[in-house]
């Protein structure tokens, strides 16, 4: 499949522009701060003492400031959900960029780690320089207490030093627990260490107060390198002469200064900086705290569970109701059940959203880990006690359940294309189930004109989760004289034995059930042929293999002039 430039730009262009802008901002900030400390007159004496270590450490600190503030923004999920919902503020391109918010968060995190390494290395050299090049001329510039002090003591007895070590340790814990491998195998380690970020930010604000690096305040009355009469240079024993002072390079000369020819009017005075980090970090930190507070208040009322239905293949459906809860099809919620685990929250996509006619909403959850197992045990009646407890079933006590959300997801865009291709793998059908429920409710009000629905499952029984919904929607659209609106293809990837859905009411599905895996290229050609020169939205929620293939196909040569725009839903 040859890469086609137009398809690639339609799919990947926006992301790469943002990447280039972000890299450019980092580079510019690094360069600007480096040059400031290298050649600005107010840092002349400090630069002479510390050398390149000063410039590199301050430049990397400014990049760290930028990334520490940017890293919080993609995690303000409610704010992003609001932005996604307002079509006036954002175009479809903007909403597609928001699908990649977690990737941007990870990029900023990696940048923080890399530049922390640079910053720490430069400051290690600075500590040595403070110790070895202790300055008797300008005692207020020193951090060491005497010449030759052990650099370890310099670091461990100053506020910025101790906070710096703490920051590195917290970053170490957070970073090592964030790899893909750990997130997949034990999510709790990732979750609990990542919540140390609040400690990280508090310590960072203290670290920035520091005050170890000072700038000269009276550059006009004491131009750097000026001639100081009546002072003896402690090294040579003669009066100080600028040319004899150790010069670290031609660029040492103060810019635009004729300091060498002038006489100092007064002694140099030094002062510590205002902590710049506070200006960078406080905005996003306040925004994030406000967002968490809002989410906490919104999720403080428990939901009322209306019904629990058990489906084949280890899936249960939970229907609930909550006051003033609004959600759009495709969004997901985070469940917290204190009887199972007080701190854990698990995300589930809504399969049915509340509408004007019906206030209940529902999720389908597959029992896979220990949280879902315990939750299901609490919800479903004990099968051994069935025969005796018939009158008691009505009074079943469901556990208390809190939900956080709803949060936006890429699948909300299905309605904003004229033609959409929805590919689901197994339980990944849940976002599309809510879309189909919304279409069943009222399909005329959306821009969507045609939807191709591909559902690949391993077992036949899985299709029964939504067989009724699919047949009902198919029936309704036939009756409304739109037979080409909804195109279903069901694939059973486990090809053993003759399997079919034999029930009479599922006849529409059994005739669209195919054994084996879908052939994506042929499917794309078929869709391209039937929708020439249109923009088709491709939505995939399923295993990585399928999504990679689809992504590659969307970037390849255009079939019949049709552009396929790829939108991927991610589960973790």
């Amino acid at each position, binding site marked *: 499949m040859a890469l086609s430039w137009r398809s690639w730009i339609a799919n990947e262009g926006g992301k790469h522009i943002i990447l280039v802008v972000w890299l450019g901002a980092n580079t510019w900030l690094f360069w600007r701060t480096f040059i400031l400390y290298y050649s600005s007159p107010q840092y002349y004496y400090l630069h002479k003492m510390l050398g390149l270590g000063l410039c590199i450490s301050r430049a990397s600190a400014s990049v760290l400031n930028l990334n520490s503030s940017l890293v919080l923004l993609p995690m303000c999920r409610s704010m992003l959900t609001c932005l996604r919902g307002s079509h006036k503020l954002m175009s479809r391109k903007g909403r597609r960029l928001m699908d990649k918010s977690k990737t941007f968060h990870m990029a900023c995190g990696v940048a923080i780690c890399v530049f922390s390494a640079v910053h720490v*290395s430069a400051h*290690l050299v600075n500590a*040595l320089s403070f110790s070895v090049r202790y300055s008797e001329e300008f005692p207020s510039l020193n951090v060491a207490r005497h010449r030759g002090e052990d650099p*370890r003591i310099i670091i461990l007895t100053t506020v910025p030093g101790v906070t710096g*070590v703490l920051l590195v340790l917290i970053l170490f*814990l957070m*970073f090592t627990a964030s790899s893909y491998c750990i997130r997949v*195998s*034990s999510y709790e380690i990732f979750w609990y260490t990542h919540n140390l970020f609040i400690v990280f930010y508090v310590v960072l604000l203290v670290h920035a107060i520091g005050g170890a690096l000072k700038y000269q305040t009276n550059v006009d009355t004491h131009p750097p390198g000026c001639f100081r009469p009546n002072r003896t240079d402690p090294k040579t024993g003669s009066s100080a002469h600028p040319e004899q002072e150790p010069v670290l390079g031609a660029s040492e000369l103060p810019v635009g200064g004729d300091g060498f020819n002038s006489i100092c009017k007064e002694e140099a005075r030094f002062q510590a900086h205002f902590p710049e980090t506070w200006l960078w970090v406080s905005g996003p930190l306040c925004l994030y705290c406000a967002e968490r507070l809002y989410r906490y208040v919104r999720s403080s009322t428990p939901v009322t569970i209306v019904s629990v239905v058990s489906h084949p293949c280890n899936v249960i459906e939970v229907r609930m109701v909550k006051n003033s809860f609004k959600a759009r099809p495709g969004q997901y919620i985070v469940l917290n059940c204190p009887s199972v685990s007080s701190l854990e929250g698990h995300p589930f996509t809504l399969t049915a959203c509340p509408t004007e006619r019906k206030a209940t909403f529902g999720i389908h959850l597959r029992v896979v880990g220990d949280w879902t197992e315990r939750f299901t045990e609490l919800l479903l009646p004990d099968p051994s006690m069935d025969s005796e407890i018939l009158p008691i079933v009505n009074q079943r006590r469901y556990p208390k359940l809190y939900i956080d959300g709803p949060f936006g997801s890429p699948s909300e865009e299905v309605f904003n294309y004229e033609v959409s291709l929805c590919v689901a793998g197994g339980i990944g059908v849940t976002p599309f189930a809510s879309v189909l429920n919304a279409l069943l409710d009222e399909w005329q009000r959306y821009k969507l004109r045609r939807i191709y629905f591909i559902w690949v499952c391993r077992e036949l029984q899985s299709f029964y989760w939504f067989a009724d919904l699919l047949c009902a929607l198919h029936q309704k659209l036939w009756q409304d004289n739109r037979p080409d609106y909804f195109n279903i293809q069901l694939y059973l990837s486990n090809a053993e034995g003759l399997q079919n859905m034999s029930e009479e009411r599922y006849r529409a599905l059994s005739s669209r059930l195919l054994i084996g895996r879908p052939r994506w290229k042929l499917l794309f050609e078929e869709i391209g042929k039937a929708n020439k020169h249109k923009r088709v939205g491709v939505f995939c929620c399923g295993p990585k293999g399928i999504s990679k293939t689809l992504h590659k196909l969307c970037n390849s040569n255009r079939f019949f002039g049709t552009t396929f725009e790829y939108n991927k839903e991610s589960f973790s």
Partner: protein
Amino acid sequence: MGKIEWAMWANEQALAAGLILLTGGIVGVAGQFRDWEFAAYGVAAGVFICLLEYPRGKRNKGTSVERTGQYCLTVCVKAFGPVTSNYYVRAALHAALCVPGAFILPTVLGCVCLAIASLIYLAAAVRGEHWQPILPKTETRERVGESIKEPPQNPPPRPPAELRRKRPEDLEGAAYVNPISVTANE
């Protein structure tokens, strides 16, 4: 909490700590710190720890994700047998390796990070975990397609020749009109 595999996190931490120790050692040597010999030790120890920790172990439950190119190192680490697969030994090794890092500034961070990794390894060892190598599976599946490509060795079963020959008592049914007239010499 019952199913967490601590060894996986300890492995990531030890690898990162090895890199931090290596970086600190390089800074110590390049910056010409006093007692730079400790920094040189940091470089050597950092490289050794990275090589030891690079191959990821196999998970007890679920699929294990390999690091790229870890096969050669897996074979090397496996060759040491119980020394490397026991996590008590690894915890003690890391605790011993981290001590010299505390003597000069650049390697202090590596020392602390390695100490934390050693503690997590101890926790993993207490819970009974041990290192198993991820090796590619060598079983070959019986491929149905292969046998289809071979031509059949024997002809298909047929009834014996007597039954296939036309029977003389049913001459009426056996008769047919030859479409081309057959006459002799005309």
